[in-house]
């Protein structure tokens, strides 16, 4: 055991040295405003990517809301610096963790990622990481090498479809994801250059460590591990190993780490604003372990407690194990405190009491619900219950 530890330690030191050397030399390989040079290989790729971007623009899953787009775009632009005008950012409504960037500047972020990261720094960490894959031409390299080995133009689309996920179901094509996964070297390069981008933009580089750890933790909390793998985890392998390396590297390189409280607040503000949509999608996935992990995280970073409690209620209610209904009730009650009660919490409390056949309490909550949300779209149903007579 000690023998192994020593070897691990030795390897770590060697790697650190190697990383330090790499970091010194790491610069973007392409300039801002990069356009394809090789007419045959790349023009074809460029045309494919252009068509694919149009598909994203026409997608029914594209999120067009202004504030959330502004938030993500500002973060991306800040990280990208001079590369900002090369980027087009698209937010896709998909409850899983993924972000990707094509070789022509199309950056895609899934809503599942936005609800899992804890701060703008962590978002910047992912965006910086993807940007680095772009500036180092990793995506292009992968596609080219795949093209050669498969001798078919299909590989570009394959890569795009999987990376962007616009019309690819999560959890499928696991075998292919392995083929498309970035190599260890590419991943490390992206981690390190990504950190460089982040730090230059004034973000906290240690956010990278936190975000990879969160990805790992969520996998651990999932009841079904690695059978419905995240696309992101699969295409960005070796999270454990890289966290280890980053944990020694980052404090070494960046000694004055002062997390910007503004960064966290902006992110929490965005979460508060979109929480209902983001967490409703998560609840719909019916994966309670993962939902729990997310709620705990949101609690820790200061998302509005009423909102969090409401979704604890939702999770317990859906899970419906022994004792869960009671837990749901308690959570919903907490969600109605203060001057910003979550209206649906009243409604669901009404339903819980209805289930327990305590009609007067149910009516009390239903009335409160309609008070707070007079334009409720299920008003007809609620009023039906308000009319019910005790049997």
């Amino acid at each position, binding site marked *: 055991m000690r023998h192994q530890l020593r070897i691990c330690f030795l390897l770590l030191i060697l790697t650190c040295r190697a990383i330090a050397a790499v970091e010194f030399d790491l610069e973007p390989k392409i300039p801002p405003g990069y356009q394809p040079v090789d007419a045959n290989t790349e*023009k*074809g*790729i460029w*045309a*494919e990517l*252009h*068509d*694919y971007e*149009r*598909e994203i*623009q*026409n997608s029914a899953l594209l999120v067009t809301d202004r504030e959330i787009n502004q938030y993500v775009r500002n973060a991306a632009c800040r990280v990208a610096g001079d590369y900002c005008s090369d980027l087009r950012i698209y937010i896709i409504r998909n409850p899983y963790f993924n972000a990707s960037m094509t070789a022509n500047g199309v950056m895609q972020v899934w809503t599942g990622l936005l609800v899992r990261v804890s701060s703008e720094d962590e978002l910047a960490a992912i965006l910086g990481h993807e940007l680095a894959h772009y500036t180092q031409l990793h995506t292009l390299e992968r596609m080219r090498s795949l*093209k050669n*080995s*498969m*001798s*078919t*133009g*299909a*590989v*570009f*689309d*394959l890569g*795009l*479809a*999987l990376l962007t996920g*616009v*019309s*690819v*179901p999560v959890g*499928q*094509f696991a*075998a*292919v994801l392995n*083929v498309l996964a970035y190599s260890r070297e590419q991943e490390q390069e992206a981690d390190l250059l990504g950190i460089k981008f982040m730090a230059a933009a004034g973000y906290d580089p240690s956010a990278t460590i936190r975000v990879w750890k969160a990805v790992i933790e969520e996998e651990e909390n999932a009841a079904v591990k690695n059978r419905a793998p995240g696309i992101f985890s699969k295409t960005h392998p070796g999270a454990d190993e890289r966290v280890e390396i980053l944990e020694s590297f980052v404090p070494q390189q960046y000694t004055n780490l002062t997390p910007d409280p503004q960064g966290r607040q902006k992110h929490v503000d965005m979460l508060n604003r979109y929480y209902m949509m983001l967490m409703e999608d998560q609840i719909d996935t019916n994966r309670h372990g993962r939902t729990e992990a997310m709620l705990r995280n949101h609690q820790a970073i200061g998302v509005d407690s009423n909102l969090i409690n409401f979704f604890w209620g939702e999770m317990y209610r859906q899970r419906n194990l022994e004792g869960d209904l009671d837990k749901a009730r308690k959570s919903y009650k907490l969600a109605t405190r203060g001057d910003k009660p979550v209206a649906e919490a009243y409604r669901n409390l009404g339903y819980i009491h209805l289930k327990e056949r305590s009609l007067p309490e149910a009516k009390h909550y239903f009335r409160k619900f309609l008070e707070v949300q007079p334009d409720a779209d299920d008003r007809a149903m609620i009023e039906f219950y308000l009319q019910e007579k005790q049997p």
Partner: protein
Amino acid sequence: MILTITRNNLIPGALSLLLLSACAATSNVKQVDRLDAVEEDPVILIMTPDVKYYLLTAGGVSEPHAEWTEAARKNFSTALQEYAKERNIKIITPPIDRQLDDTEVMYQKLYSAVGTSILIHHFGMMKLPTKQGSFDWSLGQGTQAIADKYGADYALFSYYRDYQASEGRVAFAVLAAVAGVGISTGHEAGFASLVDLRTGDIVWFNQVTIGSGELRHEDGARATIDVLFENMPEG
């Protein structure tokens, strides 16, 4: 190993779609008969073709679509305009790269479902008994909006899909295969239609299998156009 690829090829895709192979159905003659009164000078709008590929096996596709180059696109466009000029057919070919407006996107998506349904239920073996062989599929009168925007009487829609991966659309692949609609081992399903923009009715429908790159040659492009328009209604 199942791979998914996606590509939105433009006019060249439409061309190879429209190449008739031995398997292509010939029931399109019936559809022509649906036209009772053709416009004296029909104006036909060429809609952006809707093409996506899903490979079944790694490296299984023989035609690398990256080779459908801009030369092919140019050839098609030229051949199409020559043909149209000779026959006095007015065609409108909006810029390939344009961003479609919401209405066009909506009808492109609806067309994918309608066309596939026709492929499966009319040409294929999964007939719908209530139709009793009649052909009444339509996009609905709302297509008038497209007619108004472009000043066209008809629109040529084209579509190509290979094997589908998603559950919600497993109906496509499963049905298409079961229907036996000329699906070769490439598992392709493609079709083109002429839509009367005033009513939304599909007045001409043809099912095709993927071409073999004749678009890259000028005469190949021209020959394809001839075939494409062979059974089309003329003024």
